[in-house]
């Protein structure tokens, strides 16, 4: 089984729509079997793009938090100054700001009353979705929670298990935005990374940062230029940068007003308007991705 991860350095360049379209094309006529992992745990919405509903979910404890036993606490406030993350506040008695607590346990080390302890807490969910023959494993971080990296780890592990149990050819991961810990968790174990960009100066900067991460892990990668006709000059700058950095350009997808229309109806552009310019371009790209699977 191959693992491909789709990343962009920042959201909003059409990563999820592209992931969904590729999944549809790859599984059409039963050619390949694949599992999707939605690792954008801060805003998972691959299911919306696919027009599918969650069918099962389980809570996940991917985070440790400190908890105070106020019966034991003497209000000495030692813990308040010891926390390197400013996660304990209070004037009368200590209050833990659980959303920023890193679970490091320093507060319990300095507490003279053994009133603080660190416990695993539920901070998110894993949702399972089926859309046609495609299984989606999606992580969802609780609102205001931390530790998205660890949640992504769990999502990937679940998805990998799901994929190998059902004999899939491919685990396709829709990556989180950014360049931090969750991105690395999404990238771990991947055979190939597809980096999605668009022709704007900001998107190029994001592409450069994500490329640095991907190359740091020595994972082969190629780029896709979405909305490629938005600005010819920026598009050329991006192409030149790709050439200079030996990143193959896997495909270019023109801006297409049909796409948002399909999305608004909870459907895929490639399904609803198979002959639209963007659909034709994605079909070409899908052949390239098939090549990666050989």
């Amino acid at each position: 089984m191959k693992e491909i991860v789709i990343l962009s350095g920042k959201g909003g360049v059409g990563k999820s729509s592209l992931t969904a379209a590729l999944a549809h094309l790859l599984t059409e006529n039963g050619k390949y079997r694949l599992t999707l992992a939605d690792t954008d745990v801060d805003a998972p919405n691959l299911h919306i793009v696919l027009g599918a509903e969650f069918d099962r979910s389980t809570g996940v404890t991917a985070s440790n938090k400190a908890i105070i036993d106020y019966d034991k606490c003497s209000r000495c406030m030692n813990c308040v100054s010891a926390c390197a993350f400013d996660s304990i506040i209070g004037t009368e008695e200590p209050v833990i700001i659980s959303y920023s607590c890193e679970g490091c346990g320093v507060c319990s080390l300095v507490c003279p009353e053994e009133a603080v302890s660190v416990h695993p807490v539920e901070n998110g969910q894993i949702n399972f979705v089926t859309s046609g023959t495609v299984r989606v494993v999606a992580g969802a971080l609780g609102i205001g929670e931390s530790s998205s990296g660890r949640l992504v780890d769990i999502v990937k592990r679940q998805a990998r298990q799901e994929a190998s149990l059902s004999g899939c050819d491919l685990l396709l991961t829709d990556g989180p935005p950014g360049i931090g810990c969750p991105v690395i968790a999404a990238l771990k174990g991947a055979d190939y990374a597809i980096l999605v960009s668009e022709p704007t100066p900001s998107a190029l900067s994001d592409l450069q940062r994500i490329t640095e991460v991907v190359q740091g892990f020595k994972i082969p990668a190629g780029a896709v230029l979405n909305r490629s006709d938005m600005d010819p000059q920026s598009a050329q700058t991006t192409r030149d940068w790709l050439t200079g950095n030996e990143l193959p350009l896997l495909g270019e997808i023109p801006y297409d007003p049909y796409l948002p229309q399909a999305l608004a109806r909870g459907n895929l552009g490639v399904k609803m308007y198979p002959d639209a310019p963007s659909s034709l371009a994605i079909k070409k790209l899908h052949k390239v991705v098939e090549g990666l699977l050989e």
Partner: protein
Amino acid sequence: MNKRLHPEIIRHFHNTPFSTPIIGITGGKGGVGKSTVAVNLAAAFVAQGKRVALVDADVDAPNDSLLLGIPLENPQPVTIMQPIFDSAQCTDCQKCVKACQMNSLFRPKEKSITLMGECNGCEACYLVCPAGAISQGSHSVGTLYKTKRGKLTLYTGALQPGLAESALIVNAVGDAAFADAELFDIILVDTAPGTHCNVIGALKGARHVLAVTEPTPLGSHDLELILSLLDMFSIQRSVVINRANLPGQKEKVEQAAQAASAAIAAEIKLDKDLLAGYLEGTPVVDLLPNSAAAEIFLKMTDYLTATYLSPHNQTQQEQQL
């Protein structure tokens, strides 16, 4: 999971040691135009003679400097504590290995504690070492920039690619701007996408938050999430609909806003003037001040000025909290 917050946490969140109002710009997801709104609001306030701090707290992908067309200046490393081990002092008790919740410490052979994994600088190892074998070194996790252009000062942070410490950088950028707060009439904070702790960290002290969204199924879904986060912290909010003329589902966005009693502060259309500003790295407010797009931002600043920048309203606000 959506538990009630301790009132002390909410009070702490709203408490700032200065009176300069903070306005947050956020949105459930990336790519909805948060940064475009942020830089244009900054430009519009400057056009009206205000001294503005713009904080780019999207430290994974900071783009405000590109959108403003100003190169970053004054880089400063953001550092955290990193333990240094002295094998001569070490008694090999391995208390540090046990104390490290990140499981980052290993002992490959006698008296050779080695930092292998990620370290968040919590100091647990340093605190437990009975032999004084650990000293506090420092380690850079990112960079802070402060760039001044006339009445606008941009505070940006950039995470070192591949690290997990974005929260520390977010706090460092905020702190840098807050330290200078008295120099400004207003502080604008552009957050990371999502509804996680970094977004909250970035919005600390915000008097009002603009939630930017677009009229798509994704937009309304993410808007609901971000609005419930703002609700948890009792933050005043309103909604900005970007690309309002997309053939989408504006009603759903309006419903989500109404359900959270958030007003629609503005609707921004997808237009070529705005796009030109975006590609050129100049806010449309500066590039084409008479365009319809610029008009919208200038109007928003009028509203924010009237609500948050007049001394009368300030005291009222404080009394409320």
